[in-house]
């Protein structure tokens, strides 16, 4: 153990050490090499997506001799990507809306409107985030199948296929996630309750206070919840795989996987599809990097 001296009272220039050019250069070099290594696969994906099919199985070339857009056309048509995009878009829009509404309301109450037992309930709900998807996969499948009054089922959930092979079925586990409740509570716990007090004195109801005052001010939180709901639903694979069967209900990830498993792999069109499917998520990331990172780190311990 080194005994740490108390911090000096007068620090003239905090942490502006002599910059040692050599270590700085080494630093940047190592990071640059790592970044190149990480990005190489993406460069090849883009390259392959423009490579004519007849050249795809020859020597891999980073700059295709005669680039073409035909792979994109093939992917959209053969993998039925249009339909898949529509399905995934519907699912993500609904999941974003329900998560923003339900998870922020719950997180807000856990932070600013505590009630008897709210602490226990909060921890109970958040701990469900640790339940592996494979544990709930089979029961959720059966619940979707036995969903009352859906897909030809009667009130007891018997007789039909329920929500299996429907977008409603795919949506079941996405409607509200414990992680979003957690993020919302963290956010509102750091806001000032004075706002609410002032509004209460004016005679505003609690719901109005939340809806009209706190939620509009909580734009960073709404962004994080929206982004996490969006990427979670857009990228999920196992649940849609299990709950849907027909092509008209498939999500983008499923469409790609189905396209891959149809006989001979055509890497050109497959990569074109991969690019198209990844673009929305990448765009959201590039425009909201801060929200991405804060969502990831706020949901963890502060070191």
């Amino acid at each position: 153990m080194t005994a740490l001296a108390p911090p000096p009272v007068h620090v003239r220039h905090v942490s502006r050490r002599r910059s040692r050019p050599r270590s700085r250069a080494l630093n940047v070099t190592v990071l640059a090499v790592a970044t190149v290594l990480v990005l190489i696969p993406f460069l090849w994906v883009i390259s392959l997506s423009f490579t004519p099919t007849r050249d795809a199985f020859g020597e891999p070339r980073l700059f295709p001799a005669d680039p073409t857009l035909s792979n994109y056309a093939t992917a959209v048509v053969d993998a039925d990507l249009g339909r898949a995009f529509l399905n995934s878009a519907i699912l993500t829009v609904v999941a974003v809306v329900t998560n923003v509404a339900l998870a922020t309301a719950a997180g807000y109450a856990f932070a600013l409107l505590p009630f008897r037992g709210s602490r226990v309930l909060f921890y109970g709900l958040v701990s469900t985030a640790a339940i592996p998807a494979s544990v709930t996969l089979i029961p959720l499948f059966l619940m979707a199948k036995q969903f009352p009054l859906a897909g030809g089922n009667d009130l007891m959930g018997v007789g039909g296929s329920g929500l299996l092979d429907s977008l409603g079925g795919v949506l079941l586990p996405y409607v509200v996630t414990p992680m979003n409740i957690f993020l919302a509570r963290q956010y509102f716990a750091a806001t000032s309750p004075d706002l609410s007090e002032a509004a209460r004195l004016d005679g505003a109801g609690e719901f109005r206070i939340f809806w009209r005052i706190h939620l509009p001010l909580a734009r960073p939180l709404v962004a994080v919840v929206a982004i996490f709901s969006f990427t979670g639903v857009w990228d999920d694979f196992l649940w849609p795989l299990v709950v849907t069967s027909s092509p008209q209900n498939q999500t983008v990830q499923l469409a790609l996987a189905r396209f891959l498993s149809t006989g001979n792999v055509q890497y050109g069109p497959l990569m074109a599809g991969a690019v198209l499917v990844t673009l929305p998520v990448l765009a959201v990331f590039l425009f909201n990097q801060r929200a991405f990172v804060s969502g990831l780190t706020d949901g963890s311990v502060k070191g």
Partner: protein
Amino acid sequence: MATAPLYAKPRRVGRTHWVGAVFVAPAALYLVVFQLFPVLYGLALSFTEYSPLSRSAPRVVGLANYAALLHDSDFGKALWVTGKYVLLVLPLTVLIALGLALLANRPFRGVGFFRSALYVPHIVSLTVVAMVWLWMYSPDGLFNHWLDGLGLPGQRWLLDQDTALAAASAMRIWKALGSNMVLLLAGLQGIPRDLYEAASVDGAGWWHKFRYVTLPGLRPMLTYVVAMDIIFLAQGFAEIFVLTQGGPLGSTTTVNYLVYTEAFQYNSFGSASAMAFVLFALIVSFSAVAVRGVAGRKS
């Protein structure tokens, strides 16, 4: 997995808002029905024999499914594969991510670009990432092209049972680096600067600062990262589905992949549920052990 910071004391102690319960009710009820209840349902299913195709109700068989798993060589192998997968990916990912986080923690021009670029694989779905690597590993894909350029013979990568799991692990390391790095970076930035200042005054060198300031300060975040990695890696499915379908000869069949085939190809829901619960129990215990190991009581 929530390792929540200390719960802030509710303000205005003694006053309770019944209206808070109304705010919480929709989300809470939904999670109870679609997240908690399925766990109990699944546990109940694991004590039965049930095929969704049959008209008959689940038949209670007690512990028979679990007993059968003890002698099930496929399941044993899948547990082993899953364990190997976690052990191949986790230490390397955390070590490399820690190194990158330390490098990216120094402010300099353009550091933001590196941080973002390294994070990109985390944004892309596992399915897409696996497809990209499937091509790179294919017989005339990128890796064999490189080997060829070096005058070395091409490898069979995913087609050889001795290398398939390692190949899948390399892909997963590449994918997990960014999120691990960003979390560790946040941990590094949470360490009070004056500790470093004080250490410098004491004449501590680079290694001493790392050993006595950085590591202890990073411990909570490191614990969180390791626990999260175990939880996610042990559930590997999408990458296996795309890369190898569990082959060759079961060498990449993880427990989750086995659960999927048992349930949705062989329709034995009871036995698949038992497998899922054994995995669940193992994930919980291993992440608990890891948390104790990393969190340690050394100061």
